[in-house]
């Protein structure tokens, strides 16, 4: 056995705290080590070449690389040793950066620890065996979850590349939040003018099948081969019969809240969200329907010219196979009411959210594009915008920036002036964040050309005062308290992950942060991947984003999916569990704990029934390894003997 040890300096990242020469000289005296050297940057081309040359010159059979976390570059180095003619799994990487040099300051102690880590790695390397990856075919079918602008973009890009896509949306129409916007910053182009053609395209695309009113219920399988249950919720409307004539909505006697219009105005128990909805199909909400509440009504059924109403309709479960998933579940506005009693907690009708204001500004909105005070329908003259409601506020558990508030306030202030020329807008801000292309100029225009008065300070209180609203704030630039008598107050409410995002993440087995935004695999280098192979992210489900960023990420996710599915089959990791079938007692504890369904029963020739690992399903998590009573299901590359050897070295 000929082991080579390479100690990376990573510039000063490691060498600044760990004396790498000492690590090398300590390694030289370790059993089976025939070569040891330092590398300035092991991941660089010269670094990789040094490893390759040493492997060949010294006929090394195993390589221990002491560098950064294997999560960063392990594949790079596996490739490097392969080029030298070694089996890639004869490489053992140990982490002396994140787990040593970065977290310690005492050079001597850090060096000692690095030596321990290398010794442990060498001990494990002795037990390495060549492994060979398997191959599985991929399903060329993509699931996109969420039909907002990000989901639509991803679906179209993938479909254009010739791959079939299923686009699942939980609400009755695709379009998402963007469909609710009036204009978009900083160009002020009409949101629906640019979005609705894309929605229609998605509907008409031969490679896209659209499932609205649907939610992902269960995800099984793994990269390239997912099997997913999708629940299509009953809407009491037969989708392919409904012509979208809206007669049912017109005649329906049941009032219902208008979700699409963010609660501005009322809708009906059976309705189509908005005139450009895709698909143009009515949806019935049982909780507001007289037929279901009182047991009699039947108006919609009577008036429907297409005979599309079916009160007996039930949820349908659809199970399909997919090769990749793109999560594009978007965002919701943060529900500010509980957290901001000082702003009335939702009790003052003329204190509204930015999205409600957006619907009011929209020509297709419930007020026909007329800005009105909800309390009395009067046209407001003084409009106050309050930024950072539920953003940058640790006291309510929302420390992050919503990243779009500054921009949409500027837009809404401009639109307010356009709608009501003799109005005055006041904008309370803390910092103006306008980092995109043309953004800063846009916020300047709001002030210079449209006369919005910007006041730097967080609002303290809003209260009813002589039929108007009094806004108590501060202008920190002058240092004074300020008060404004307002007709309408618009709260720039922050971003929240979509309801149920965390639950969906658990179903897909991807990680998410404390606000239920999905975690990307690496913030810089793998921004659209997750830590679960085959699951990608697009748009605001990953964190607050504006439209350009969402669309860019959506196309990036599409590129990743297309790349993945362009291959006919995928290599699977050989680091999977393996049953020692002569010793297996057939208790199947392994099957109970396996999260991937990778254990099957196998009847041997002698009639014994033992466990067998389906290599293509096993993800190498090691749970079975721990659960097995006789300990006969080792994980390849991480056998008990290897781990014990490591522990022994550490305890020495």
């Amino acid at each position, binding site marked *: 056995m000929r082991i080579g040890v390479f100690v990376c300096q990573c510039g000063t990242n490691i060498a600044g705290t760990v004396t790498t020469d000492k690590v090398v000289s300590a390694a030289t005296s370790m059993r089976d080590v025939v070569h040891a050297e330092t590398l300035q940057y092991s991941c660089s081309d010269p670094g990789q070449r040094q490893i390759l040359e040493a492997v060949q010159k010294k006929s090394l059979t195993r390589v221990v690389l002491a560098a950064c976390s294997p999560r960063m570059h392990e594949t790079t180095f596996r490739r490097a040793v392969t080029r030298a003619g070694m089996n890639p799994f004869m490489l053992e990487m140990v982490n002396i950066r994140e787990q040593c040099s970065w977290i310690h300051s005492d050079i001597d102690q850090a060096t000692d620890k690095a030596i321990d880590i290398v010794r442990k790695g060498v001990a494990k390397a002795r037990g390495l065996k060549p492994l060979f990856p398997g191959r599985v075919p991929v399903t060329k079918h993509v699931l996109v979850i969420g039909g907002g602008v990000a989901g639509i973009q991803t679906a179209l890009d993938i479909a254009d590349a010739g791959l079939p896509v299923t686009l699942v949306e939980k609400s009755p129409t695709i379009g998402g939040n963007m469909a609710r916007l009036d204009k978009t910053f900083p160009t002020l182009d009409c949101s629906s003018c640019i979005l609705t053609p894309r929605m229609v395209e998605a509907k008409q695309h031969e490679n896209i099948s659209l499932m609205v009113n649907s939610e992902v219920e269960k995800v099984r399988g793994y990269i390239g081969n997912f099997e997913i249950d999708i629940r299509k919720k009953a809407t009491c409307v037969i989708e392919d019969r409904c012509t979208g004539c809206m007669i049912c909505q017109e005649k329906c006697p049941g009032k219902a809240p208008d979700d699409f219009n963010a609660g501005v105005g009322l809708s009906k128990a059976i309705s189509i969200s908005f005139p450009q909805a895709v698909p143009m199909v009515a949806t019935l909400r049982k909780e507001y329907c007289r037929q279901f509440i009182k047991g009699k009504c039947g108006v919609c059924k009577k008036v429907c010219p297409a005979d599309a109403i079916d009160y007996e309709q039930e949820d349908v479960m659809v199970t399909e196979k997919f090769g990749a998933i793109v999560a594009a579940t978007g965002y919701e506005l943060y529900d500010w009411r509980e957290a901001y009693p000082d702003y009335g907690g939702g009790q003052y009708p003329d204190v509204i959210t930015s999205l409600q204001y957006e619907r009011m500004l929209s020509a297709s909105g419930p007020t026909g594009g007329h800005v009105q005070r909800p309390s009395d329908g009067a046209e407001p003259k003084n409009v106050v915008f309050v930024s950072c409601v539920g953003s940058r506020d640790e006291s*309510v558990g929302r420390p992050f920036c919503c990243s779009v508030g500054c921009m949409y306030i500027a837009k809404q202030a401009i639109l307010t002036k356009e709608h009501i020329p003799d109005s005055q807008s006041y904008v309370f801000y803390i910092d103006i964040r306008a980092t995109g292309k043309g953004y800063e100029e846009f916020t300047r225009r709001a002030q210079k050309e449209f006369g919005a008065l910007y006041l730097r300070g967080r*609002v303290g209180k809003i209260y009813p005062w002589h039929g108007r609203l009094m806004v108590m704030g501060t202008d920190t630039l002058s240092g004074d*308290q300020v008060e404004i008598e307002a007709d309408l107050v618009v709260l720039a409410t922050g971003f929240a992950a979509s309801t149920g995002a965390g639950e969906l993440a658990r179903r897909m087995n991807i990680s998410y942060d404390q606000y239920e935004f999905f975690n990307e695999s690496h913030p810089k280098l793998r921004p659209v991947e997750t830590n679960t192979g085959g699951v990608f992210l697009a748009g605001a489900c990953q964190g607050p984003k504006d439209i350009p960023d969402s669309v860019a990420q959506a196309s990036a996710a599409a590129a990743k999916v297309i790349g993945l599915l362009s291959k006919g089959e995928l290599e699977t990791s050989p680091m999977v569990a393996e049953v020692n079938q002569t010793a297996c007692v057939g208790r199947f504890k392994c099957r109970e704990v396996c999260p991937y369904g990778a254990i099957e029963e196998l009847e041997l020739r002698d009639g014994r029934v033992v466990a067998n690992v389906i290599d293509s399903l096993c993800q190498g998590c090691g749970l079975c390894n721990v659960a097995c009573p006789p300990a006969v299901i080792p994980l390849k590359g991480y056998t008990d003997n290897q781990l014990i050897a490591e522990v022994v070295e550490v305890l020495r």
Partner: protein
Amino acid sequence: MAIRVSSTIADGASVIREIERRSGERVSACYQCGRCTSTCTGAFAFDYPPHRIMRLLQLGQVEEVLNSRTAQLCFDCMTCSSRCPMTIDVAYVIETAKMIADERGIEGEEEGVRLFRLAFLKNVRRHGRLHEARLMAWINLRSGKIFNDISLVPKTLRKKKVHIVPPRIKNRREIHRIFREVNAKLRDE
């Protein structure tokens, strides 16, 4: 005149450390959103509203803070503290500055407030309980504003809201021991 910040943050460092230690708050946590000032009850009477006190501390301007009217006048209603998005106990930061000013013998320009506090404590030390009428009369005498609130006197008398005879507790020695224990020096004695 420009504040030479490179000097002030060095000069003010020890006092700021003391304020941070005693209040348990970090002045650098403040990002100057001004919500404290937006909700401040007394700001109109202060020389520096609360967010500016925080800013002065960030800039190392401790003398301005210790000598400020704000430190003398702030009556600790804690509205700012309860509203701060960074959960800084702003009122307690100001309160701590006030205590440090007091320990350094800084009297400030707010004599009325100082007199009130002093008179109140003297009154309590003497009787064990507060004699409101006596407190009011004493303050008016000392501040020279003899007729302050005089319009309230007949009304309060009629509504039986005033005791003429001071209330006294029995074990006044225990009260004296408390004052001695904290080395209370009631100035002007």
